């Protein structure tokens, strides 16, 4: 899927808005390092075989969120010109927007961000997802009376 230069900039900024990168990892948060995720490349790969309607939807979503600072009255600039805090706040607003279309297209961007992030092996490794598998142990769980779980052999 071909993106214009400005779509690429918006896309990168939008995806980084969902999980802002940091050089120094914050305690308890999954934080990508700057440049760790090839958002644009993974996005293009993912959408190469998408249906024409899905491709169109993806362009519309990038423009809708990319220009959201303007049409929400946040700032007269593209999404990439917002600072980290403003990006997060705006994405939160869009994900809760009263218009279903805005909400759905913003959610589509989040799905794509999750795909590119967790499709990156180093990020996946830090998510803890594969912990049980590495141990190659059958996991059996029992719920205790207080509602928490314990592992049994």
């Amino acid at each position, binding site marked *: 899927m071909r993106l214009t230069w400005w779509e690429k900039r918006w896309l990168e900024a939008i995806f980084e808005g969902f999980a802002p990168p940091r050089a120094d990892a914050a305690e308890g948060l999954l934080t990508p390092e700057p440049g760790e995720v090839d958002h644009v490349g993974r996005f293009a790969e993912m959408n*190469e*075989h*998408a249906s024409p309607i899905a491709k169109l939807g993806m362009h519309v979503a990038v423009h809708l969120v990319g220009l959201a600072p303007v049409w929400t009255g946040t700032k007269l600039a593209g999404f990439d010109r917002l600072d980290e805090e403003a990006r997060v706040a705006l994405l939160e607003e869009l994900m809760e927007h009263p218009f279903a279309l805005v909400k759905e297209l913003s959610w589509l961007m989040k799905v794509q961000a999750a795909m590119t992030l967790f499709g990156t092996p180093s990020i996946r490794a830090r*998510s803890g997802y594969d912990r049980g598998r590495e141990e190659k142990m*059958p996991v059996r769980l029992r719920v205790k009376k207080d509602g928490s779980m314990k592992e049994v052999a």
Partner: protein
Amino acid sequence: MGLFDRLRGGWVYEDDADYVIVGTGAGGATAGKVLAEAGHDVLFLEEGPRLKTKDRPRDAIGALSGSMRQAATQTTAGPVPIPVLQGVCVGGSTAMNSGIIWRMPEDVREDWITNHGLASLVDEGELERIYETVEEDLEVSPTGDDVLGGNATLMRQASEKLGLPGKPMSRNAARCDGKGECLQGCPGEKRQSMDVSYVPRAMAAGARLSTLCRVEKVWIEGGRAVGVIGSKMDRHTRKPLGRFRVRARHVIVSAGVVHTPIILKRSGLGGLVGHRFQAHPGAAIVGRFAEPVRMSYGATQGYEVPMRSRGFKLESLSLPPEMLAARLPGVGAEWQERVANLDCYTQWCAQVRMEAKGRVVPGPFGPLVFYQPTARDLAKAKEALVLICRMMFEAGAVEVYPGIGGIPEVLRSPAEVDAVEAQKWSPAAIHLVASHLFGTACAGANPGRSVVGPDLQSHEVAGLYVMDASVFPTNMGVNPQHSIMAVTYRAAEQLALRGGARQAA
């Protein structure tokens, strides 16, 4: 063949066979296996590639774009689009399904006999014999405790606490070692999808397979099917390289519920082709636990709670990390905290037997699927999803994420579930996905009400058969693969008997 085809000529590939089978999914592979083992000359034409299990990508992007139609982005047309999932590779949708096996429910079989005149197709004794054969061939057995994993085990605990009729799923993966990657193709070929079972068996009996061959229409002469015409596709771009044609004594179309009617329509068939599209759309709920659940270990799907009398079925469903992360609420630090603990979640889904009927028609960019669940369908979906939320808290979840528009993103107690249940849900609120599809070339004794007869031969064109889920006149409320295989097995056996000895191509 029309004048246009004659003038165009320039075939990049020509072949002939006794039986040409379009598609290698549950229906096509079964038909091919039966006919080839009966000594007939069979040629499979498959639009997708043959994917070597060990080479299939393990990440979701690679898996979806390499094996699923339009990278899983095809949706129904209409105000609330529903993704429609189908495989496009050798094995069809069985190459990425979870291998859940259910025999056709008795009430469905009786309905097909009484209301659709299909007594010979679904004869009780014959189906029983076929089920046993297929179950043995595909190593069907209940999911063992050792591979249930945390996701399914917690569902079992919730089901037992609430007194629900849950049970470990029967699957065609007796040797499953809980890698949880059915969607990406079982890494150790433990799950007996068609690409590792009936297609190789058919080929061992002499069947041939041509991949990257997209059939466009059936070649009809004098009211009889005499072959198929299509385009050879490039492996990488999936764009047409040139046209091919194959002559055959019998043509079996098994391209699945969305593509079979398109091929039939392009071939000039009319009537009810494309009508009565039905489905079991589903939606899923995610729950967070204080302790690790480890979704990455265990059968992709291992435990189920069938509630047919309520019109739905609940299933544990493990997801790759990319898809799980997308389901977790929040932006920025809130989301980053949730995704830093991806081993602490469960996901359970509901498959709903919907009454809605839709239509598949050719569109400018491919098939259009018009389908809209009814108000009653959505009420069933709501009942199922509310029950899942309750089950999650019963199993000890600390947070439940319904993922439903217009209601809170995070529920923290059963009382909040009651509040959500009391709320009105908008029709677009539930994010449905459909992977169990039915109809569009329905079987029946009455040519005015069906496309193919009880032997699955077209009412309009002699020598043309449909053998896949499109022939189902109704949906069923249970996972369809086994019933599709049983029905096509039966029809292929009857055809093999009628077809006589091999007439070598």
